[in-house]
């Protein structure tokens, strides 16, 4: 694959499937993403949209029986070399050098990713020693510096504390310190504020913006919260049933949503300042499970603008409607996706 771009990461036609006894679960079914340094790319979607599996694919940590079926994940490494992560063995030395160092991840629940039996400091030092600074003393200094920079109060004391001694917000800060300790070029944040209180969420969002300005890393921000994405992202990708159905700059997406799913989603949420007790414009039906999905638009079963014989006959392509505003819908373009078998 040709690769000339300033992007940190280019995902092309990624498909990650889970082959289960009852059929094939197409968690990610043809996703394209491009992320540049200093840029925050938002990925928004409900459960089953494939947003988390996309992130797991980028780090090659998809849990079995899931596996990358096809596609390219081109990462520009710190030495300038391009590498296709999708082609790497999940156990290879190269992917292990990338994970946690050049591409790191922050999860929703810090307790599942922090070890309960090691101190915060020891866990950050381990990552630093492994990837950038083998000297124990220097690594300790770097770790302390990092703990300080993420706004953890009393860093010297916190260094020797265990995760359970920290509050939820402080744990999330510790996770971010660990994720940024090796100066990654890409930080994947998977719902990092979902479990937090709204005032603590505001602190963490602020912190991530500050750290991005300092370190210049690219951020892939995954969430289901439209408010959070409006707050932090430069560009938004709306995912539904394993595919990106709309992509635009954040301002454009919220001002001029094109895909019926995005439009309905924006209308269905109660918004602050909405007051009135009028009925919400709910989207009918349930989020389907992408088990053996038919070759059709994923939103067809819930869409009010569904066109029989068209929306259920092929998968619409993701087409630029002008000004880098992409939509995957036959209302906007006749173009279909080539059939992938």
């Amino acid at each position, binding site marked *: 694959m040709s690769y000339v771009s300033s992007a940190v990461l280019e995902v092309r036609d990624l498909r990650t499937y889970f082959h289960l006894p009852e059929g094939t679960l197409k968690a990610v079914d043809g996703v394209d993403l491009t992320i540049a340094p200093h840029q925050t790319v938002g990925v928004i979607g*409900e*459960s089953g949209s494939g947003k988390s599996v996309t992130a797991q694919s980028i780090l090659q940590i998809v849990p079995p029986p899931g596996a990358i079926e096809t596609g390219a994940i081109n990462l520009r490494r710190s030495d300038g070399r391009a590498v296709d992560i999708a082609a790497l063995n999940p156990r290879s030395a190269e992917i292990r050098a990338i994970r946690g160092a050049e591409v790191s991840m922050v999860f929703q629940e810090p307790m599942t990713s922090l070890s309960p039996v090691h101190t915060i400091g020891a866990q950050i030092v381990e990552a630093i020693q492994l990837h950038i600074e083998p000297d124990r003393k220097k690594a300790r200094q770097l770790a302390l510096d990092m703990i300080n920079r993420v706004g953890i109060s009393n860093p010297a004391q916190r260094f020797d504390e265990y995760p359970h001694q920290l*509050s*939820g*917000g*402080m744990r999330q800060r510790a996770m971010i310190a660990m994720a940024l300790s090796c100066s990654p070029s890409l930080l994947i944040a998977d719902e990092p504020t979902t479990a937090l*209180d*709204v*005032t*603590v*969420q*505001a*602190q963490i*969002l*602020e912190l991530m913006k500050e750290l991005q300005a300092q370190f210049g890393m690219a951020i892939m921000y995954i969430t*289901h*919260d*439209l*408010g*959070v994405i*409006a*707050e932090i992202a430069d560009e938004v990708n709306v995912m539904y049933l394993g595919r990106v159905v709309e992509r635009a700059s*954040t*301002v454009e997406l*919220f*001002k001029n949503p094109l895909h019926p799913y995005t439009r*309905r*989603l*924006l209308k*269905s*949420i*109660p*918004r*602050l*300042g*909405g*007051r*009135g*007790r*009028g*009925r*919400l*414009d*709910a*989207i*009918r039906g*349930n*989020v389907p499970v992408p088990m053996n999905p038919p070759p059709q638009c994923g939103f067809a079963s*819930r869409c009010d603008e569904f066109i029989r014989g068209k929306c259920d006959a092929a998968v619409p392509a993701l087409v630029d409607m002008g000004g880098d505003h992409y939509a995957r819908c036959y209302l906007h373009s006749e173009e279909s996706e080539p059939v992938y078998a």
Partner: protein
Amino acid sequence: MPETGAAARKPIGDVLLDVRDLKKHFPIEKGFFRSVRGQVKAVDGVSFSIREGETLGLVGESGSGKTTLGRCIVRGIEPTEGQVIFRLPDGEEVDIAALDKKALRGVRKHFHMIFQDPYSSLDPRMSVLDIIAEPIRNNRILSDSREIQDRVRELMDKVGLDIQHLNRYPHAFSGGQRQRIGIARSLAPSPLLIVCDEAVSALDVSIQAQILNLLEDLQAEFNLTFLFIAHDLSVVEHISDRVGVMYVGQLVEMADTESLFSQPKHPYTEALLSAVPTTDPEIKMERIILPGEVANPAAPPSGCYFHPRCRYAQDVCRTDAPEWNEVAAGHFAACHFANELALRGVEQAP
């Protein structure tokens, strides 16, 4: 399904529930002999009332005691002190907090709780029929199994479940459908009051709206009274007639929804409102970033519990606990400077 919720809403009636100085303290026990070393004051002197047909929203962050309060009201846990006066359909008033087990069994059918997690709150070994029928059987409302089945079918239809799925088990349903099962179950004994504890928080965004609409439709149809506990301020604003804000076991502000959101009188409410991310990326509100975190209810700060995080705090806030005062008609706040501060609310969206 009834017609639109807003149009069909019944007028708000007399006081149905009157909570007076309710407290729930959990002892902190240590050592082999479990000697009590302190108290976690999860709910510490909360008073409010709800009228029939009204929705009272209760917001607060984790550790604010809102869930504990809800549980005390339905006697899911035993309150330490205080009264929960509830008006029965015949007009008699009972103190739920003081009833003995037998008397409690007689009135339980009148109030019910809906929980956050539709996955863990339903018994996976019971069919939908049994889950919804359980409160009908337990409260001896109906005994004939035909009649019970008919009632369950009626309830399933009301909450938008397919009555064909009567004998299915919870695992066969999605999160939104499970929450519908939980709602049908809570409606089964025809209660007057429903305590919704984060009833839509665990649901997908596109499903939340369906459940909120359903709750409003059911309220209009059965003249239900809701205590709606949630951390999501936009959801609470949408559904509530009045809203109370809790911080470390106490109410710090309570008012009708319009006043509370447009003219908050407590600095904590102001900060909470400003912290909510808005979906309009062009409107950038000045955000108040509160320092620190919610105070520990086992060792709350002196004076006003909010003072260490409050940007308006004065000396008096560090020493004296503020009183709960009516600062405007029907607008209560516990802040020394509630009358002096000009706090910023959320403007009504066009």
